[in-house]
């Protein structure tokens, strides 16, 4: 069964450093998303991406964040200068349309 994959599973970084989180969405999906979940809290929408551009972003997704689909398979989230409060689990998701979103296993980001 096709699944969304994410790498790395865990990333530890120093405050102020740049990180890139990688995702491979399901191959025939057209919509891609990033969500984050601070430990023990709800899942929060960050950004959606369709037709090679950002469709919508939340207030959390400020100038420190960017997304890219550098080739036909990868979908990346870059945080330019990490802060302590960026520590969270980051989930990538994809969908064909308005229905079910398929989530990846997540990348746990720890900012020291």
């Amino acid at each position: 069964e096709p699944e969304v994959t994410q790498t790395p599973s865990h990333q530890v970084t120093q405050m102020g450093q740049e990180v890139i989180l990688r995702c491979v969405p399901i191959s025939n999906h057209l919509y891609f998303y990033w969500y984050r979940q601070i430990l023990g809290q709800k899942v929060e929408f960050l950004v959606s991406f369709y037709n090679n551009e950002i469709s919508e972003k939340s207030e959390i997704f400020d100038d420190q964040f960017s997304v890219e689909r550098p080739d036909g398979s990868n979908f990346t989230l870059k945080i330019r200068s990490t802060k302590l409060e960026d520590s969270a689990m980051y989930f990538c998701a994809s969908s064909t349309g308005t229905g079910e979103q398929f989530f990846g296993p997540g990348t746990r980001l720890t900012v020291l």
Partner: protein
Amino acid sequence: GQQVMQIPQYQHVQEGEDFTTYCNSSTTLSNIQWYKQRPGGHPVFLIQLVKSGEVKKQKRLTFQFGEAKKNSSLHITATQTTDVGTYFCAGRFYGGATNKLIFGTGTLLAVQP
């Protein structure tokens, strides 16, 4: 803003007891989805409700969407230890440019054997 609340935050039941979680939105929803997240896992889709007053069943799980499309519930009959996890509702609001989901605050279900 667009907010989705769930109650209770936490529920502890004995195996075999029933469980219900309630989801309320600040505004009318286009549709609502339910996801289950096992401890240490990622959200896994359970179901989507679209129509006002819709009721759907999956084995021991019953999902309802309110008439005003502002609330929803998930009921589990005769819980099993495999039901353990956090149940999230996730709403799509009218007027959004995309399919972004606003997740509820979640209900953590613990089942004692």
